[in-house]
């Protein structure tokens, strides 16, 4: 399954400065692993060693937060668009 992944400015340097990368995988987790294979060190920006998504990172599949789908195990369809965004937050 080929998907497009938008990467916001804050973590672009983890993927060689690109705004968008193509990746393969049947689930969000597999896509992240595929990006990690091309850009070592990328995955640590997004999830911890146990494979849990960092609290301060949001991943959207098309227009939905994957936390409200099946998280990293969310199944992808061809042509899906994924977006990775650090939370912009404060107090």
């Amino acid at each position, binding site marked *: 399954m080929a998907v497009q992944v938008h990467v916001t400015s*804050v973590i672009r340097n983890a993927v060689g400065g690109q705004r968008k990368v193509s990746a393969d995988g049947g689930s969000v987790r597999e896509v992240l692993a595929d990006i990690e294979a091309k850009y070592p060190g990328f995955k640590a920006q997004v999830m911890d060693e146990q494979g849990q998504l960092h609290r301060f990172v949001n991943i959207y599949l098309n227009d939905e937060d994957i936390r409200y789908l099946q998280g990293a195990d969310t199944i992808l369809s061809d042509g899906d668009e994924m977006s990775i965004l650090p939370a912009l937050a*404060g107090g």
Partner: protein
Amino acid sequence: MLKIPRAIVEEMVAHAREAMPNEACGMVHAQGGVPFEVHRVKNIAGDEKSGSPFRYEMDPMQQLRLEAQRDETGETLFAIYHSHVGSEARPSPTDERQAFFPPGEFDRDPAYPNTFYILVSLASEPPEVRAWRVLKRTSPDETRPVVIEEPIERARWWPQWPWRCWMRRWTGRLRHR
């Protein structure tokens, strides 16, 4: 002095008042370094994802769209603004942590190195509006990043103001209605 058009300062204050009792948040875009447009962003902090008086978190989809707009137009992220409903217009400890990615990594460059943080405080009347830069700490012994205030000058207008860009935006918007 940080020159900001009066209308932009007033728009941020208006947003802060309308968002009461919750915090307001948003982005100020610049063209050629001149701040020219305020984008209100939905605050999705809180259990109901509908805002909080103590925290803000920008709607990620809006965040994404605004970034796409900047990439397309060459506009830049001049400032990230938010309001404090009961405290001073300076970055809170949470704001300082969140200026870094991952949060609290004060030895790295900030997440948005060329962007100001503008705070609107509704604790006083008239509301206070102040701009700050948050930079990486100077030594590992420091427990906080470097936080510098940039005094704001509320400009009525000035020659470099991107009128054309602004006009194009507005006429474009009217056409899309």
